[in-house]
Every structure is written in structure tokens, then in C-alpha cells.
């Protein structure tokens, strides 16, 4: 009896030869990167390595100077951020961008502006998303009343409202207390189980090693190493980039 070969997970996000310059500074330099469905791809590097810039190019906040970004096979290189969001890419920010003077429930209603569902259904979904990140009890509070860590969870809950298939998380664990950090990790794992794909930027190597299926290491805008967690940990170029000679 022959066994059919396991089908490789499709690439949902493909970056090819991406370049972003700011004047004479090359912030992202010919980066190739793939995220396959249902995986967490980690992106690490020292400060100024170009991680957030790469993320900004992927989701259309910055326009790349060269190279391409494909989302589910569609060329998204020159699309607007909202167009890329409609392809199924959601993101959070290093410094949370909550709508501070709105209640948590209202924060979650913003992404569903064009929804044809009834208000009751949308409120129910928003309440469920908030419950997932332990913020349901605070649903009528303003976002500005939350701690930094809670605001990061609120951003994640807001993403869940429009149900993106690819989630870009920029420093989700920075400045977050250990208990909220565990909650964030649990949410990432839950969403991955549900088939979501992640590109995760973090300085918290413990968390990123735990979560990532594959890691890319950026240094001065270039990918200097990539592979599984163990490969990257022992790569001399990575050790040199982090610790010096």
C-alpha cells in the first residue's frame, strides 16, 4: 500500500527582494521571507535591524522601493493598508494604537464598519472576542484606562473582529507583565490551532523560541540567518550580531 506524500502547507505571505530606503539609509535590504499557513514565523534582530520597517512595508504603511509582497498569491506590493487588510492581513503595533476615548466594545466595532450583520450580532461577537483576552469585564471602560499590556490584548481582540488569516504582531510581549504575556502566548497558540498564520517580531527570545516554527534574523536590513529555532540559536552569524565578536 502506498502512502500519499504529506501535502505542504501553502505559502500565505511571500516577500521577495524587498528593499526600503530612507534617503541614503537602506532599512530593508533585499529581504526574502515566507509564511506558510498555520505557522508562526519569528522575526528577530537587534534594535534598528529593520523588523518594524519590514512589517510596515508588508502591510502597506510604507511603500517598498523594490521587491514584492504577495498575500495568498495576490500581488499586494503597491496596495493600500486597508486593501491589504481586506486580503486578510491584520497587525498590531509596537506601541498599541487603541482608540483611547472609546469603550473597548466600540474599539472592536470599528473594523466591522462595512458588515451587513445586525448590531446585536456584532456586539455579541465583540463581547466574545473581549472574553477571549480577559477584557470582557472592562468592556464599557475607555481604552485609555487599560494598562499597556491590556491595550496589546485589546489590539489582538480588535483583529479577531475582522478575522484576518495572517497576523503581524509587532513586539506583543514588550512591557507586558508575565501573566498577560502568558495570556498573549495562549491566544497566539489558539489562533494558530485555528489555522491562522503569524509573523511575530519580538525581543523576547524565550517567547519567540517557544512559539515560532521558523525564524528569520535581520541585521542592518538583511536576512543573515533563517531556519528552525535550534539552527538559528547556534548560527555563529546570529551570535555575532547579538553579542559581537
Amino acid at each position, binding site marked *: 500500500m502506498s502512502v500519499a506524500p504529506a501535502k505542504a502547507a501553502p505559502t500565505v505571505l511571500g516577500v521577495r527582494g524587498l528593499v526600503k530606503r530612507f534617503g541614503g539609509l537602506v532599512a530593508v535590504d533585499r529581504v526574502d521571507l515566507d509564511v506558510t499557513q498555520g505557522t508562526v514565523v519569528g522575526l528577530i534582530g537587534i534594535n534598528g535591524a529593520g523588523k518594524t520597517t519590514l512589517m510596515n512595508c508588508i502591510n502597506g*504603511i510604507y511603500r517598498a522601493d523594490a521587491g514584492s509582497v504577495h498575500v495568498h498569491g495576490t500581488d499586494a506590493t503597491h496596495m*493600500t493598508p*486597508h486593501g491589504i487588510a481586506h486580503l486578510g492581513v*491584520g497587525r498590531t503595533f509596537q506601541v498599541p494604537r487603541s*482608540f483611547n476615548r472609546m469603550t473597548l466594545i466600540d474599539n472592536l*466595532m*470599528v473594523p466591522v464598519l462595512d458588515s451587513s450583520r445586525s448590531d446585536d450580532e456584532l456586539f455579541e461577537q465583540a463581547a466574545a472576542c473581549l472574553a477571549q483576552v480577559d477584557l470582557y469585564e472592562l468592556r464599557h471602560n475607555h481604552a485609555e484606562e487599560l494598562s499597556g499590556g491590556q491595550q496589546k490584548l485589546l489590539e489582538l481582540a480588535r483583529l479577531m473582529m*475582522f478575522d484576518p488569516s495572517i497576523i503581524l504582531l509587532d513586539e506583543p510581549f514588550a512591557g507586558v507583565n508575565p501573566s498577560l504575556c502568558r495570556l498573549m502566548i495562549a491566544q497566539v497558540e489558539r489562533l494558530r490551532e485555528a489555522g491562522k498564520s503569524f509573523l511575530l517580531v519580538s525581543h523576547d527570545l524565550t517567547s519567540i523560541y517557544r512559539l515560532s516554527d521558523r525564524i528569520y534574523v535581520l541585521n542592518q536590513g538583511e536576512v543573515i540567518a533563517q531556519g528552525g529555532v535550534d539552527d538559528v540559536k547556534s548560527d555563529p552569524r546570529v551570535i555575532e550580531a547579538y553579542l559581537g565578536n
Partner: protein
Amino acid sequence: MNTVLLINGLVGGIVFGAIYALIGCSLNVLCGVLRIINFAHGEFVIAGTFFAYVLLTALGIHPLLGLPVCAVTFFIAGYALYFVLIPRLARSDEPETSSFLLMFGVSLMLVAVMLWIFEADIRPVNFSFDPINVTLMTIPDAYGEGRHGRVVVPTARIVALAVNAVIIIGLTWFLYRTLPGKAMRAAIMNRDAVQVVGINVQRLSAAAFGLAAALAGVTGTLLALVVPSVDPNGGADITLIGFIVIVLGGLGHPVGALAAGILFGLVEQLATVLMPQAAAQMVGFMILVAVIFFRPQGLFGRAALR
């Protein structure tokens, strides 16, 4: 102090204040969502007054009945004008400075167009209400020797105030209870975050521009009810008042602008009653300077919003 005059000043302050509130609120939505300084807002308001004037003189339509037509027409014009003017600004190195200059140019152009069509004369808007005036209250022995005082307000002003209140309630409901309104407030708070959750910011901005234009048109019509004449050169004063109101209320704080408009109207009208006319004009501006010095985030804004 004459009680009748004082109460008249209060009533006038509320009537004018409600109009200032509407001006400030629409400017605030524009500044917040689009990050543009609309120096032509006053001319949009005057255009609204001319719209009411034309409907009345050419078609015999009462300004009050023309109000919905004015709102829809100005919304469509504003929505279309957005795509002609504003997206180009995004390519500028300094969009806010460019918007200031661009809208100043639009302001001059609109004044020129209105002067061309209507000439420089101040024109009366001759509508009528029955009764013409309403006696709000009678104050016994207000002038001594048994002479009663009456607080009399033109019916048109009461109608303008009532319509204004309905519009303000509707606007607040729109901004706080509907999804597009919440999206507009969210865009005021963080434009990038709105884009990355899939909101088309261009369309939202065009809607905000259209809304501000519609409010300006409606304000112009209400202004015709309160001051039944129209001057093509009157826009600059209105724009100035609008900016005072948003500084007082807090930039990016539409409801703050509503409260600040009423406050400014009351102070302006009471100062007119209580002080010599030349000195009275200073009071509003003195408040503006004081707020900038001591509470730059505005009376109703918060420091973090700036």
C-alpha cells in the same frame, strides 16, 4: 443692571452659541479626520446662506424647507471636492501647511465666485414667520414705576435654535452611536490603526469632508434665520470664530466644540450687553489667549490628545 437686557443677552448667546457650536464641530471633524486646516469653512457657511437666499428669491422656498436640500447638495459637493483637492496633499512634504495654503486659496476663490455672482451688496433674506416675535417672559416692574419689561425674541431665532439643537443631537448620535460615526472618531484618534483594520480612509475622509460641508451649508441657512442678510465677504469672521471654538473645546474633540461654541456665544453676547461695544469684541479673544496660555489642550480636551 437691566434684567431684561441681561436675559436677552443670555438668549442671544445661546442662539448664536449653538450656531458657533455647529461651525466648531464640523471644523473639528475635518481637522481630526483629515488633518487639514479648512480656511474656507466660513465661505462654505456663507455659500449656505446664499443657497437659502437663492431658493427663497428664485423658487419661493422658505429657508427652513430648503434645509434638507441644502444639506444633501453640500454633502455631495463636499464629497466630490475632497477627491479633487485633498488626495494630492498626501504627496506633499508638509501636508498640514499645504492644506492651510490650499484651503486659503479655495477661500479666496469662493469669495471671488460669490462676488461675481451676487456682487458686493449685502442682501436681505426676506422670509417671515407668524408671529414675527415671541414674548418669552414678562418681568414685573423691570423699569421701575410699575413699568413691566418683556423679553421678546424673534420667532426665526427660536426656530433656528430648535433646528440647531436637533442637528446637534443628530450629529452626536451619529458620531457616538453609528458605525460610520465611530469610525470617524477612531480616525481622529488614530488614522493608521483605522487603516490596518480594513477601513478605507480615503472614503471615510471624503465622507467627513462631505459631512463638514453639509453642516456648513446648514449652518449658513440657520444663520440666515438668525441674521436675515448675507454678505459675500463675511466668511473670514466665521472661520475665525470656528477656530476659536475648536481651540476652546479641544482639537479633535467634536463634543467639546459644541460646549465651547455655546460658551463663546454666551460670553460674546453678554459682553455686548454689559460692556461698551468696542471692549466687548475683545472678550472672546481674551478667553482664547487665556486658554492657549493656561490650558492649551482646550477646556474639554486632554493633554494626551495633542
